[in-house]
């Protein structure tokens, strides 16, 4: 199997790119794949922190690109998994410290270490985005069901279609009860507006803050509700056809029931 190089991107910041990269990467590793997660956010390193690997960083991606160290030396193995590693971003350098060509060359070098390379893209559509995309063959667009996130996702999808590359969509932080009451865009609306292929829906969950605080991937927490969700997204990426849990839109009847029960 040739290495899947997937950029995780969104346009807007704060929608959950890094959390998605970390947890999906962990889910893929748990399923036995060799996974390397790349932090492409030069100057704003965070993937290491979300995964609890911040104390172990020695070299970063810019140093690899500049030939100051071997790619192998910069990879930090996550000891909780057999086959998960991260390639950290440089924290004290500018985005311009690495070119798109250099970035793509480093990513291509990861083929011998990984079955899946997930590239955690910085927010925006400038240099950092272009670098991250240059290294990828496919894209995972993360959005939340909010107008600003969706508009930015649309812009990013437009950029990715120009490359072009296959695009899958994750709707993150959905609040099912708000969808049911009509106060939040439903998943089907988001997909219709963005005209993209859905690969997963992650409900909003306070536990994600808790696991991120501790630097622990959700798939390791057997009691976590989101664990199976990331596992299913991982399986869909493998090509398995698993139906996506629908968080249905409210019908008049449902609203009537809701009004009666809460009124």
């Amino acid at each position, binding site marked *: 199997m040739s290495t899947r190089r997937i950029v995780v991107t969104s346009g807007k910041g704060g929608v959950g790119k890094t959390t998605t990269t970390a947890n999906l990467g962990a889910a893929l590793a748990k399923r036995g794949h060799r996974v390397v997660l790349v932090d492409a956010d030069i100057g704003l390193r965070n993937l290491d922190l979300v995964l609890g690997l911040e104390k172990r960083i020695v070299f970063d991606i810019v140093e690899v690109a500049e030939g100051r160290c071997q790619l192998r030396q910069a990879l930090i193995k996550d000891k909780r998994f057999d086959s998960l590693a991260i390639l950290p971003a440089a924290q004290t350098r500018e985005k311009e410290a690495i070119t798109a060509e250099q970035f793509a060359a480093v990513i291509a070098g990861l083929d011998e270490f990984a079955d899946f390379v997930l590239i955690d893209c910085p927010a925006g559509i400038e240099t950092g985005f272009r670098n991250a995309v240059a290294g990828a063959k496919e894209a995972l667009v993360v959005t939340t069901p909010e*107008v600003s996130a969706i508009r930015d996702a649309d812009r990013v999808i437009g950029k990715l279609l120009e490359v072009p590359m296959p695009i899958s969509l994750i709707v993150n932080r959905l609040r099912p009860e*708000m969808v049911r009451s009509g*106060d*939040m865009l*439903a998943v089907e609306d988001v997909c219709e*507006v963005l005209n993209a292929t859905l690969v997963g829906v992650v409900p909003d969950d306070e536990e994600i803050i808790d696991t991120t605080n501790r630097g622990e991937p959700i798939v390791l927490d057997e009691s976590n509700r989101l664990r199976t969700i990331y596992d299913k997204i991982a399986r869909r990426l493998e090509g398995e056809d698993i139906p996506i849990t629908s968080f249905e839109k409210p019908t008049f009847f449902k609203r009537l029931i*809701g*009004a009666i029960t809460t009124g």
Partner: protein
Amino acid sequence: MIDFFKRLFGPSDSGATAKQRLQLVLMTDHLALAPEMIDAMKRELVEVISRYVEVDREKVEVDFERHDHALAMMANVPILGVARPSERAPEPLEPAQPVAAQPAAAGAPPLQQRKRRKKAQRAPA
């Protein structure tokens, strides 16, 4: 009881409002990103109108404006001359489609040429 009806009929349907607003704003975004497409549309629009009236091609303006619930295309097309109804000869709207009986109609010929042809058609009547 008022609360009950509020919950039943609204205003809690901001999800639908969000969808409608997004569809409109994305349409505007996409238009702004596709200037070539708009130029092509402007050219073809003028082409169609000038089959019926003579227009000042240099002064044609096409803009997109947002109204409350829809995106509107505003076209300002100065007309130089209007043909009388009897002079209007309907022609195929799609110039790309070859029409056996009227080979000259294919490919939208210049205005002058078409006028002459119309006169020739009218002569026997």
